[in-house]
């Protein structure tokens, strides 16, 4: 039991740290008055936040691998219950 929960709880901490990092990066005071146009057409403040959206997606993708909050046995139990219900 312990061996299966430890990697998951480590994963939770990694995801929590990444979410905090995203929230810090979200407050991008350093680009507040920067009028640079990335690729000549996208303002850097908008580009940065589009990258944050991509970063969020990658973080959540990692979360589904290393920190999914539902134990496999619980899922099997619940899904078993629902298929029994469906057949009865």
């Amino acid at each position, binding site marked *: 039991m312990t061996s299966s929960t430890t990697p998951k709880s480590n994963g939770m901490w990694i995801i929590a740290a990444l979410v905090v990092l*995203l929230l810090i990066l979200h*407050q991008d005071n350093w680009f507040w008055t920067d009028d640079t146009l990335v690729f*000549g057409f996208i303002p850097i*403040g908008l580009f940065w936040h*589009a990258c944050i959206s991509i970063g969020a997606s990658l973080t959540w993708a990692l979360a589904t691998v290393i920190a999914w909050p*539902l134990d496999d046995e619980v*899922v099997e139990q619940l899904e078993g219950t629902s298929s029994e219900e469906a057949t009865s």
Partner: protein
Amino acid sequence: MNHPGLPQLIIILCYLGLLLLLGLSSSRLFKGTKEDYQVASHSIGPFLLLMSLFGTTMTAFALVGSSGEAFKEGIGVYGMLASSSGIIHSLCFFVIGVKVWKFARRHKYTTQIEFFRDRLESDFIGLLLFPILVGLVVPYLLIGVISSGTVIQSLTAGLAPNVEMFQALTPDGNPIVALNGGVPPWLGSLVICVVVLVYVFFGGMRGTTWANTLQTIVFMILGIVTFYVIASRLGGQDGLMANLQALAESVPEEKITRMEMSKTKFFTYLLIPLSVGMFPHLFQHWMTAKSANTFKVPVICHPLFIMIVWVPCVLVGIWATGDLIPPKPPLPSNPNTILPFLVKTQTGKVLGGLLAAGILAAIMSSLDSQFLCIGTIFTNDVLTHYKGKENVSDAQQVLYTRLFIIGIVAITYLLSLGNVKSVFAMGVWCFSGFSALFPIVFAALYWRGLTAAGAISGIFAAIVSWSVLFYQALEQDALRTFVLKLPLGGEEYEIMPVVVMLASSLVTMIVVSLVTPKPSEQTLARFF
């Protein structure tokens, strides 16, 4: 077909017909049970769940409001409303949605109130939450119903300028060019309400999910096509890249930076998307998931989908402030009509009609879930709860849910005929109210120490702080722009009212929970 407004009207009617067909087709799979009507028998897979969750959270604001706000405030609105939602919405799906799904499947819940009543051994919390949740969803519904009427009117303008009912005039009797002759808003809103009612009535949650999926695909694709066409027309260069560069260079500096935006307001806006954790209609969508793993695709793709919809809309909004915009016809004064205006003046009639369908898709994909959810709350948490489950058959519960849906659609429609301006300003207050309740649902899932008294006190603290701040905003006639000013070190920092609401709810909930008796060990064992 060259008659102004006619192609747009035909496309809108075809689209609405398609939706009705889809809703009625989905009803062929209806099993006749309450569980099937309210949560599609927990049969929804990852793709449909992604599309229905995204469609439900993205209202008309995603297309029309995002470009309008960007026109007013510049690029900062993306960070304030979109990238923040990309982080926080998925966080809520991950931290709240999956866990709530587990308990709901285990204990057979369909609504939040059923969960809270059981978790806290308190019937009163249901009575308290019921009017609050309904009261916060109704303004949200009104925004959709009113927007649909406005969008249809502006995109069919010119259709029948000589028919009195279709005329839009200024107080001194002159026609409003952008609206005159278009389908009147009361009629447009009525048609939308009826269409949504029909497919929710017959299709229940399955019809809603199918319709949401179609509508999400429609508004995402049309948003991108519109972006491409507008960029090509406004830029006046050869090739998309050259057009994009020419347009960006035409935008004033204050719109491509955030020099006029408060940093603390931007920061505290992060709390608004927490509202997703307490939306009753999202709770019900979570319950449709076939398995826990079904959540994985929505959790990953939601931030990307927000980006795909919002980035083009924000760019179009800031372009409208640049000097490449033709001086005639003049831009409308209402920022929310910027996108429909550009579509109308810069693209063809067919694309105008298709975009109208896209905007209506975004609106209806939220309305349907909200109507269904309120009907479900009335049936499960009031009628069946107090009449006793054993006294109400499954078929009766489906019937009652449908009757309540008709009632709520009728009430919402009648309310939509009232004051328009105040309702739009209510949007952010509505979201703030849901965010203020976030600590309660989070603690109910993760803190054994939460007590019924603590949760109830927290809810009261949220109501009181919301009401006091709302009253202050009303007094200052600043519902839309109201912020609190925090004096610190000789400077004043703007913060969103949601900070105070959430903090008061959180602190009260913790303090009261620490000094009041916890639920029984037997109940706690069911949840921890």
